């Protein structure tokens, strides 16, 4: 009976992580993929923080009369990870914006299609150039 609430935090983390993973691999929209990645990221944050928790422990700020504190180490790691996470998300968004400006879409399928068209056009560059000149 004790085991079920004890492991509940891991299951929540696994659920959130898989939800994020599912978005990343199944959706074609690049912005949506980034949201999925962020979801995945927060699940890892929750995993770390929940490991640092000690039952009846206080927040790791020294107060007289308190002897049990939660583990400060995961807090430090995640604190910096969150801010680094937002910075890397911003880089991802910047890339998405550049892709949109280059292709006019943020859907993966359409980008792939355009790449295929570009490739087939690149195979016969002479004829396409000639076509330009005729005009």
């Amino acid at each position, binding site marked *: 009976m004790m085991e079920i609430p004890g492991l509940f935090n891991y299951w929540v983390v696994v659920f959130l*992580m898989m939800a994020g993973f599912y978005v990343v691999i199944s959706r074609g929209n690049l912005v949506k993929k980034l*949201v999925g990645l962020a*979801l995945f990221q927060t699940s890892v*944050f929750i995993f770390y923080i929940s490991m640092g928790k000690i039952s009846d422990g206080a927040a790791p700020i020294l107060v007289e009369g308190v002897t*049990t504190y939660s*583990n400060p*180490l995961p807090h430090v790691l995640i604190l*910096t990870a969150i801010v680094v996470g937002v910075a890397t998300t911003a*880089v991802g968004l910047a890339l998405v*914006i550049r892709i949109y400006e280059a292709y006019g879409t943020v859907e993966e399928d359409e980008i792939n299609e355009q790449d295929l068209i570009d490739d087939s056009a690149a195979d016969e560059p002479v004829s396409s150039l000639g076509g330009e000149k005729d005009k």
Partner: protein
Amino acid sequence: MIAIAVIRLRDLFAVIILFGIYSLLTAALFMDLNAVDVAFTEAAVGAGVTTVMMLSSLYLTSRWEATPKHNSLLPLLVVCITGAVLVYASLDAPLHGDPSSPVHQHVAPRYIEKGPAEVGMPNMVTAVLASYRGFDTFGETFVIFTAGLGVLLLLGIQKPHKPQPELNTVANEVVLKVVVKMLIPLILLYALYVQFHGDFGAGGGFQAGVIFSTGFILYHLAFGEIEARRVIPTCWLPRLAALGVLIYGGVGVFALLEDKPFLDYSALADDPVQGQHLGVLLVEFGVGITVFSVILLIFHILAGRSRQS
């Protein structure tokens, strides 16, 4: 539940707003798990900055997600199998809140017992962050700085475009502007408090930087681009970010010059505990400046980019 809604919805605007709510809930959860500093950061970053950034890049791209063409059954299967394996693995994991789990056995007890005496500050998170793990934090500050540069290289700074009065619905909202004007000093004051009180209570450079930049982002949103760029020109921001990294690195190099190891704060004062205090304060200040300017820089770049169709 909100996570599921985030997956299902195709309107990306709603997805992003929901994601902000989800972040706020996560912050509340962190608070419950005794991680006050982390809750702070998550609330400011997840619910504030990320949402604004994603919205402004949404403005630059498109709002609606296309219906997926290929079958989503295979990814679902992969996800279910991976999830099942992870749940199976969790059966052997230590119980939640168990003080004897391996996480709490290694270096953590030392940080908790000796930290306040050695570093001389009650907030152990700040002590570990800036003093014991100063190298890591230096690396992370550098990563943030590099990310800011990356966005700058990818998108570049554009000249602010001319305001179009008939399109700008916020321009005439007097109530909004007055409220924002009253809120901004409070936000900035609070950020400064978080910055310099981080040794004693919850807070520190990372949180303060984010909160400080939130104040400026709010100003930007309410008063428009031209006004906001008059307060802090965009070209200053990369320099400010570099200055923050320089302060952090400078503290380390100063220790080197005093024949001490890199980032050994006892070089800063005669009394080691005093030196630790000064060192942590300076380092957190450097982190705060870098985080603030990088986030504001990214926002300026995203918001300043004109829409291309």
